[in-house]
C-alpha cells in the first residue's frame, strides 16, 4: 500500500466511503443511550454549587456553619478542599472554585452535597459569603484601557518591549507574519480598513454538564461524566484532589454535544471533593442557567483589518489587529485567530498582532476551530469589499491569491497538498453560485481554514474467538466516530462492518488519549485503528504460519484471509480471520492489535461557503434562504457523518452570525442565561444545508483523512455577513447581525446618503 497522493486516489475501498448504521444508532432512538445525567449510584447524594452573584468581588470569608447543621446535608466544600497544583493547573483550579476573589457572575465559591436537591438548595442559601464588591469590566476594549479595574495583580503583559512594570488585563501580545506590510500596502491600488466586533457565543450543546463522582475510604475514586476527553479529566481531577492518577478511573458517558465546551472540567472535581468528604457518591448536574453563566463560552472580540489589492486582483498586503477577551483567566484563542486570519492567502507581506485579554466573564473554552471564525469574519469581509471595489468576482479574487501545495503560510510553515482551490472551483461551478436573486436579497461567499490536530492516541483491537472484533478507543464519540473507526478496522481486516464493535473504553483500560478536539478523532484514532488492525494482521498471519508450519514472512493477508505469499510458500487453503481466531487458544492465546502513537501529519483543511440572505428593510430582520458548504475532507470515511459535520458547523455559524450573543448588564451579570433568550437556530430558521465533499487526500493518513469537524464553522460568519451586507446595501461589521443592528446599519447608511 502506498501513502502517496496518487496511490490514495486510486485505492478502491470496500467499506470506507459507505454509510453503515452506527453502533449507537438504535440506543439513541429508544432512549437507552446513557448520558451524563443518566447515571445513578447506590447511596448517591445531590451536589449543588453556590455561585457568585457579583462580577468581581473579594471573598472575605465563607461561613457554612448553618448549612452544615441542616438535616440531610452531608458535606460542604470550598477552595480549601482542593490540593495545591502547579502553575499549569492553577487557573483551572481557580475556575473550578474561587479562591480569594470571585471573578465573574456565576463563579463557583462553595458546594454542598445533600440527600436531595431540595435540601441542597436550601443549604446553599444558608452559606454566608462575605463579599467586598470590586469594580468590574466585561468589554474587551474597556478591559485594555489604562484605568480599567485589574483582575489579577500578577498579570503583567508579556510579548511587548519594553516589558511593562504594572499589572494589566492584557496577558500577552502575539505577532505573526512575514514581509513588510507598509511596503506591500504601497503597491496596492485599493486599500480597505475596517473595525469589527463579535459578541461572545456559547457552544450551546443541549446536554448540560453532568457527572457522578465517588471516592471510597481507601482513596480510590471513580468518575462517570460527559466529556470530550476523560483521560484529561482524570489527570486534572487527580491533580486537583491530590490523588495518584491511577487511583481515579473515569468513564465517559454518551456525550450530548460538546463542540469544544466539554474539553475542560467544571463540576467533576467538585463532585469528587464532595464525595471524598461525605463518603458517598455525589451527582452534580448543571442547570441550563449554570451552563450559560459558568461553563466556557467563546471570546468576544474587537478587530481591525487592513488589506491592499492591485486592480489585477493580487493582494499586496494584509494586516490585522485582534483583541479577544477570554474571560477571567489567560488563554483566549486570539493566537489561533491571528494564525488563521490570512491562512487562505499566499501573501508576500502579512502581519497579525493579537492581544489576549482578561475580563470579568467566565473563562472561555474551545468552540469549534477556536478563534478562527471571528478572524475569518473580519478578513473575508474586507476581501469581499475589495472584490466589489475592483469589480472582480469574489471567487476569482480568492483564486488569484489562494494557497496551494508549497505556499508559505501566513503563520509559518509551508503547506503540503491542500484543497482550497478545489473548494473555490467547486463553489463557482455549483448551480447555487449563479442562481437568480430577488429584491432585498444578497449572496455571500467566504473561505476558511483550520489546522486540525493529531496527538496522543492509544487503541486496542481484540479479536474474539468467534471472529468478531472488539475495538476499544479512548476518544469519546461526539459525532459518529465509533462507526468510522469500525469501518476502518473492517476495511483493513477485510471483514464485515457488522463484525466490529467499537466502544469508548475507560481510563484504566487504555493508555492516554488526548481529548476529542481539534478535529483529531477520525484522523488520529483512525490512524491508530488502522495500525492496530495491521498489528493484529501481523499476529494473525503468524498464527496461520504456525498452523501451516511455514515462516510468517511467507504469509500475506488479503481480503480477510491469510494466504501463502506465493507458490514457494507452499499450498494451503486460505484461513479466514474467524478460523484463525477459533483456534487461537491452541496457537498461542488471544490475538489483539495495539497502537500507541503521537499522531503527526494531520492535514489542514479549507472550506468555501455560499449563502443567500434576505433582509426586511422595515424591521432589520435577516433570513437565510440558501446555504451551500464546500469543504475538503481528504477522504470521507462515512460521508453522512462528514455531511453532518458540515451542516452542523454551518448552522452554528448561522446562529452566531444572526442572533446569538452573551448580553451583560451594567451590573456585570449575564442577562440572558436561558435558551429562550439566547437564541440558537430552530428548524424553521434554516434552509436545507447543501453539502459538497471535496477530497484532496492528506498524505499524513493511510486513507487520506483530514479532520472535518471544525473548518465548517470558520467561513459562515463571514459568508453570512457578506450576504446580509449585500442584501441590506450596507457593510455590517458587528455580530450578531440582530434585527436592531441591521436596522441601525440601514438607517445610518441612509443618513449618510449611501443607501
Amino acid at each position, binding site marked *: 500500500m502506498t501513502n502517496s497522493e496518487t496511490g490514495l486516489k486510486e485505492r478502491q475501498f470496500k467499506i470506507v466511503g459507505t454509510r453503515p448504521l452506527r453502533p449507537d444508532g438504535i440506543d439513541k432512538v429508544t432512549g437507552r443511550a446513557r448520558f451524563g445525567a443518566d447515571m445513578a449510584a447506590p447511596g448517591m447524594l445531590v451536589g449543588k454549587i453556590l455561585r457568585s452573584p457579583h462580577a468581581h468581588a473579594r471573598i472575605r470569608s465563607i461561613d457554612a456553619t448553618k448549612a452544615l447543621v441542616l438535616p440531610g446535608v452531608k458535606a460542604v466544600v470550598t477552595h480549601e478542599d482542593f490540593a495545591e497544583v502547579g502553575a499549569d493547573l492553577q487557573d483551572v483550579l481557580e475556575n473550578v472554585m474561587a479562591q480569594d476573589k470571585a471573578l465573574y457572575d456565576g463563579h463557583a465559591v462553595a458546594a454542598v452535597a445533600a440527600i436531595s436537591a431540595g435540601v441542597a438548595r436550601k443549604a446553599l442559601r444558608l452559606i454566608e459569603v462575605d463579599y467586598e464588591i470590586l469594580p468590574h469590566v466585561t468589554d474587551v476594549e474597556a478591559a485594555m484601557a489604562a484605568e480599567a479595574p485589574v483582575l489579577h495583580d500578577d498579570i503583567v503583559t508579556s510579548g511587548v518591549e519594553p516589558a511593562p512594570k504594572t499589572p494589566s488585563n492584557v496577558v500577552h501580545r502575539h505577532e505573526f507574519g512575514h514581509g513588510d506590510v507598509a511596503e506591500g500596502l504601497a503597491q496596492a491600488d485599493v486599500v480597505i480598513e475596517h473595525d469589527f466586533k463579535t459578541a461572545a457565543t456559547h457552544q450551546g450543546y443541549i446536554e448540560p454538564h453532568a457527572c457522578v463522582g465517588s471516592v471510597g475510604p481507601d482513596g480510590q475514586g471513580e468518575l462517570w461524566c460527559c466529556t470530550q476527553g476523560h483521560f484529561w479529566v482524570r489527570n486534572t481531577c487527580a491533580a486537583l484532589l491530590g490523588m495518584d492518577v491511577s487511583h481515579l478511573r473515569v468513564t465517559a458517558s454518551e456525550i450530548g454535544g460538546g463542540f469544544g465546551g466539554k474539553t475542560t472540567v467544571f463540576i467533576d472535581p467538585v463532585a469528587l471533593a464532595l464525595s471524598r468528604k461525605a463518603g458517598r457518591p455525589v451527582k452534580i448536574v448543571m442547570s441550563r442557567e449554570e451552563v450559560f453563566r459558568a461553563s466556557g463560552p467563546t471570546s468576544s472580540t474587537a478587530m481591525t483589518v487592513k488589506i491592499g489589492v492591485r486592480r489585477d486582483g493580487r493582494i499586496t498586503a494584509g494586516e490585522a489587529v485582534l483583541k479577544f477577551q477570554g474571560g477571567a483567566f489567560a488563554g483566549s484563542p486570539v493566537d489561533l485567530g491571528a494564525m488563521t486570519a490570512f491562512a487562505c492567502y499566499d501573501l508576500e507581506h502579512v502581519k497579525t498582532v493579537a492581544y489576549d485579554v482578561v475580563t470579568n466573564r467566565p473563562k472561555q473554552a474551545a468552540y469549534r476551530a477556536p478563534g478562527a471564525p471571528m478572524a475569518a469574519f473580519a478578513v473575508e469581509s474586507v476581501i469581499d469589499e475589495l472584490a466589489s471595489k475592483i469589480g472582480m468576482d469574489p471567487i476569482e479574487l480568492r483564486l488569484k491569491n489562494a494557497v496551494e501545495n508549497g505556499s508559505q503560510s501566513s503563520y509559518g510553515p509551508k503547506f503540503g497538498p491542500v484543497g482550497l482551490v478545489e473548494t473555490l472551483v467547486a463553489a463557482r461551478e455549483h448551480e447555487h453560485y449563479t442562481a437568480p436573486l430577488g429584491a432585498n436579497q444578497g449572496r455571500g461567499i467566504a473561505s476558511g481554514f483550520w489546522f486540525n490536530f493529531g496527538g496522543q492516541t492509544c487503541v486496542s483491537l481484540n479479536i474474539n474467538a468467534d471472529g468478531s472484533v472488539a475495538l476499544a478507543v479512548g476518544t469519546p464519540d461526539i459525532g459518529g466516530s465509533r462507526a468510522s473507526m469500525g469501518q476502518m478496522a473492517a476495511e483493513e481486516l477485510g471483514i464485515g462492518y457488522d463484525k466490529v464493535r467499537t466502544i469508548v473504553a475507560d481510563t484504566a483500560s487504555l493508555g492516554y488519549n488526548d481529548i476529542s478536539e481539534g478535529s483529531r478523532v477520525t484522523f488520529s484514532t483512525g490512524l491508530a485503528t488502522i495500525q492496530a488492525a495491521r498489528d493484529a494482521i501481523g499476529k494473525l498471519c503468524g498464527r496461520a504460519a504456525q498452523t501451516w508450519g511455514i515462516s510468517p514472512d511467507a504469509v500475506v493477508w488479503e481480503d480477510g484471509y491469510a494466504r501463502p505469499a506465493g507458490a514457494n510458500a507452499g499450498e494451503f487453503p486460505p484461513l479466514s480471520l474467524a478460523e484463525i481466531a477459533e483456534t487461537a487458544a491452541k496457537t498461542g492465546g488471544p490475538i489483539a492489535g495495539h497502537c500507541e502513537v503521537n499522531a503527526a501529519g494531520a492535514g489542514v483543511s479549507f472550506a468555501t461557503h455560499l449563502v443567500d440572505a434576505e433582509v426586511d428593510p422595515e*424591521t432589520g430582520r435577516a433570513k437565510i434562504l440558501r446555504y451551500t458548504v464546500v469543504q475538503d475532507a481528504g477522504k470521507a470515511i462515512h460521508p453522512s457523518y462528514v455531511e453532518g459535520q458540515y451542516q452542523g458547523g454551518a448552522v452554528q455559524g448561522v446562529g452566531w452570525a444572526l442572533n446569538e450573543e452573551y448580553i451583560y448588564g451594567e451590573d456585570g451579570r449575564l442577562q440572558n442565561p436561558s435558551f429562550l433568550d439566547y437564541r440558537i437556530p430552530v428548524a424553521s430558521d434554516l434552509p436545507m444545508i447543501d453539502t459538497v465533499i471535496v477530497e484532496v487526500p492528506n498524505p499524513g493518513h493511510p486513507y487520506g483523512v483530514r479532520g472535518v469537524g471544525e473548518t465548517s464553522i470558520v467561513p459562515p460568519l463571514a459568508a453570512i455577513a457578506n450576504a446580509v451586507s449585500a442584501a441590506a446595501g450596507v457593510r455590517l461589521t458587528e455580530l450578531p447581525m440582530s434585527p436592531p443592528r441591521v436596522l441601525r446599519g440601514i438607517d445610518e447608511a441612509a443618513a449618510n446618503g449611501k443607501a
Partner: protein
Amino acid sequence: MREQVRFLLGQEPRELTVTDPTMTVLDYLRGEQRRCGTKEGCGEGDCGACTVVLGRLNDGRVRYEAVNACIQFLPTLDGTQLLTVEDLKRPDGSLHTVQQAMVETDGSQCGFCTPGFIMSMFALYQGTPNPPQRQEIDDCLAGNLCRCTGYGPIIAAAERMYAIGDRTGDAFRRLAGQTVDSLAAISDQETVCVGDGSRRFFAPATLDDLADLVLAHPDAQILAGGTDIGLWVTKQLRILDTIIYIGRVAELAEFGETDSTIEIGAAVTYSAAMELIAGHYPDLGELFRRLGAVQVRNAGTIGGNIANGSPIGDSPPPLIAAGATLHLRRGKDRRSLPLEAYFIDYGKQDRQPGEFVERITLPKPDAGTQFRAYKISKRFDQDISAVCAAFALRIENGRVAHIRIAFGGMAATPKRANQAEQCLSGRPWSEASVASAIAALAQDFQPITDMRASADYRLRVAGNLLRKFFIETTQASAATRVVGAGNFAHV
C-alpha cells in the same frame, strides 16, 4: 375528594398519592421511575429534550399531543395517558416507524435531543394522516433544539416516517379502543386533592366546584397550562402553597362560535382554538402559530396569557385590536369588561381575590374590516416578542371609520395607541395621516431598553409596522413579508 392522581403510563394504569404537588413530570420519570430516555436540557420549556406525549380523551377518541415534561406538574396528568420514548417500541422489540425513520436518515449526531424529537414527531404522526409539508414539519419541530445536525436529517426523518410507515397498522391506533376505555375508566367528576397538608393541589372537574374552591382559597395560585407557572417553580424556585388547577374543568375547555362572536373558555389551549380563530382572523391564527412552539401551545392557554398580565404576552394586542371582552367569575357573580381595561399597570390586573377568568369573547370581524397582527422577535419560532402589533381598520367613503391599534412590548402593559388612533380616525387612509399617526406613537409609548431590543428600535419598528400595515392595505400585491408562508408570516 379523590386523594390520588390517576393516569396511564404507557398502557399501565397508575394511581399515585403525590406529596410534592409541584414535582414535574420530568422529575417523576427520571427520578422516581428511572425512565431516563426523556432528557433535561433546560428545565424551562425551551429545548424540547423532555418532550413527552399526552393522550387525552376527545370526542370519544384519544388525541395525542406533545408537551414539555420539565414544566408540567405531576398532578396535571390526571385522566391522561403519558407516553415516553420508552413506550414506542413494538411489542416484538422492533422500532416504531418514527424511530426507524430517524435511524435511517442519521437523525442523531450526539443523540441527546433525539428522544424529544422522536416524541414530537410521534405526535405529528398520530395526528396527521397525510405526509406533512415542510412548514408543518417546521411547526412540529420548532420546540426542539438540536445543536449538532442543522436539522436536515431530522426533517428528512419526518418525511421518511410517512414513506416507510403503515399508519393504519400502527400499534397505538390498534390499541386505541382499549386506551379509550382505560381513560374513560379513570375519569370522574370528583375534585382531586393531593399534597402534604401544607402544600395542596386541587383539580376540580366542574365549573361550580372551581368557583367554590377559588372563593374558599382566594390566595391560591390558579394553574392553567403551567407554561408560565412551571418556570416560577423550576427556574425561580418559588414554593407554591395552594394550587387550583383548571385543566380538568370541562366547561372551561369549551370553545365555539355564535353568529357574531367566538367564545373561548379559559382553559382552552392555543392548539385547540387556533383553527377556529384562524378561520376568522387569519393573522391571529398565524400569530398563535408562532407563539412559543407546539409543546407550549398544547399546554398554554389564551386565558393564562391574559391573566398573567405580561406586557409582552402575544395574545392581548391582537385581541384588544379585535375588540375582545373578558368574562370574570367570583363565586356565583359574573362580570365582563373590555380586555384593555383588565390591564391596569405592570403586574396589576383588574381581578379581585376569589375571582377567575372564565371566558373570552371575540367579535367576528365585520365585512370590510382589515385585521393584521405582527410579531417582531429575533427568531421566527419560539421567541418572545420585542414588539407585537395589531391593527383593525375599516374604511368607509375613503375615510377611516374604525381603527383600533394595540401594541405589546411598548409599555408596562399591553396597550392601545390612543393618540395614533386619533390621528387616523375620520381621516383619509393616506400617507399623510399614517405619517402623523406614526409620529403620535411617541406620545403613546415610552418603551424601555432591555436585552430584547432598545427603546429606539421598539419605537422605530412600531412605526414601521404601521407603515407596513398601510402598504399591505393599499397595495394589493406588495411583497412585504420575508419570513414564513405566503401572506401570513409576521415579519
